[in-house]
């Protein structure tokens, strides 16, 4: 039943994000653009996969607070959180179900984006070995999971709107910091997904995957501590 509740709360944005991914893939196809008489636009593989990172921010949820069923917040959301808390369910379970559901939806959108990249690769002039593209997709998924975990972390103590802004701000800060501080490049998720992508290096960025996994696990562990410790 908690899965059903989570689905009700996320289905609209999930379906909109799927539609957005498909539209982005469609406009990447130069044939369709030419037929429509529009100026050619091309999204590269990183941009298309970046969409799933954005989707992960929007799909992240704290598990306790009721979230808008649609895209707009509606009346009664925070009040209904007390009803959820009155159920004979631990906060860990509430958190676990919501995080798992959001993660599954993120994975679906990521897979769709990856399939879209594969299908539109002639249009974006992507001449990649399928195995290199798979490695890139796997690395990108670890990156998306880290972004998702950051979204979950913010969602444990911020409302929906602020959560998205906090995520964006953190990501921007991260990019600025990585450009100024000489950290190992292998730990920079964005770097490894762009100029040092497996599409170019033909190797799996294991260091980055380990770092992203550790970051995700840490963020989720902190989030669950906050959920337990917080008062509602």
């Amino acid at each position: 039943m908690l899965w059903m509740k989570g689905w009700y709360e996320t289905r609209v944005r999930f379906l909109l994000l799927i539609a957005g991914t498909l539209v982005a893939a469609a406009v990447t196809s130069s044939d369709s653009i030419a037929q429509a008489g529009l100026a050619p636009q091309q999204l590269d593989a990183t941009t298309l996969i970046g969409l799933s990172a954005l989707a992960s921010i929007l799909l992240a949820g704290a598990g306790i607070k009721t979230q808008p069923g649609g895209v707009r917040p509606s009346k009664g959301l925070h009040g209904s959180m007390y009803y959820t808390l009155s159920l004979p369910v631990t906060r860990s379970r509430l958190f676990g179900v919501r995080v798992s559901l959001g993660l599954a939806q993120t994975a679906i959108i990521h897979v769709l984006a990856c399939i879209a990249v594969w299908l539109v690769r002639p249009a974006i002039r992507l001449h990649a070995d399928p195995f290199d593209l798979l490695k890139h997709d796997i690395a990108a998924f670890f990156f998306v999971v880290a972004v998702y975990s950051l979204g979950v972390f913010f969602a444990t103590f911020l409302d929906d709107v602020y959560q998205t802004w906090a995520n964006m701000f953190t990501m921007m800060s991260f990019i600025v910091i990585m450009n100024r501080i000489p950290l190992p490049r292998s730990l920079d998720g964005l770097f490894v997904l762009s100029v040092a992508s497996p599409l170019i290096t033909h190797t799996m960025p294991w260091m980055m995957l380990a770092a992203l996994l550790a970051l995700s696990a840490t963020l989720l562990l902190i989030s669950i501590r906050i959920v337990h410790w917080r008062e509602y």
Partner: protein
Amino acid sequence: MTDLAIEAIGLRKSFKGQQALAGLDLAVPQGSIFGFLGRNGAGKTTTIRILMGFAKADEGSARIFGSFPVAEIRRRIGFVTEDKELYPYMTVADVIRFTRPFFPKWRDDLERRYLRTFDLPPNKKIPHLSKGMRSKLMLLLAVSRGAELLILDEPTDGLDPAAIEEVLRELIALAASEGTTIFFSSHQLAEVEQIASHIVIIDKGRAVVTGTLDDLKKRYQRISIVFADGVRDIRWVDGAEHIRQEGRMISILAGRNIEGIIAQARSLPRTTVESHSVTLKELFLDHVRTN
């Protein structure tokens, strides 16, 4: 095995330096209908949040059926929130379908009965229900859990007088037939007086009056003393809890040593002394005003 459904000892809670609870003690016997009274901001909702495990006390302990308020204990509790908010994307039928599997003792008979009695439309979405209808739906959800304890925060808020009467009748029937303990907060003193077996009045985060309603009514008396020559400054004997002066009359609310106070009043020259029992409203107002 405890015979108390709820036991709170020395609950203290502050929010940003503002004290919400200041050593609250509660003892709610199983099977009782317990009225939880206090002004706005007296600490009622904070107490309920602690009892339900939504918040933690800074000091003191709260136990339900002898245990701390953990998830498993909530299986035995029916709860109505203060603002009566439910998931806005669900219909009446959806929210019932959602809640039922969490409670193995779910009472289909009560669900059907209250759907009919409260005239709840199964296919209507929650935001399209009036507050009164949401109150009724929350009562249905609380009662149908097959709970041994109902914690109801302002359960009749938003209901019209006829609906209040209907809900109170159902609550009394539930307590009588199922032995359910009902712990409810309310500002409606008349309805508390109508159904409660026990009450506690809290003010500024602590209990100022507690006991069975019958005992309290027997115990408390209002003694009115009219002075023919004007009120004098008098040091009253022990037992005078609240003293109020209105013109040439002094009104004393006393919970003990009533005979001693009456004797003292009668010993004063040119006075008329009367005593009578108090209503719950008088008891409440006297305590929260003075405190």
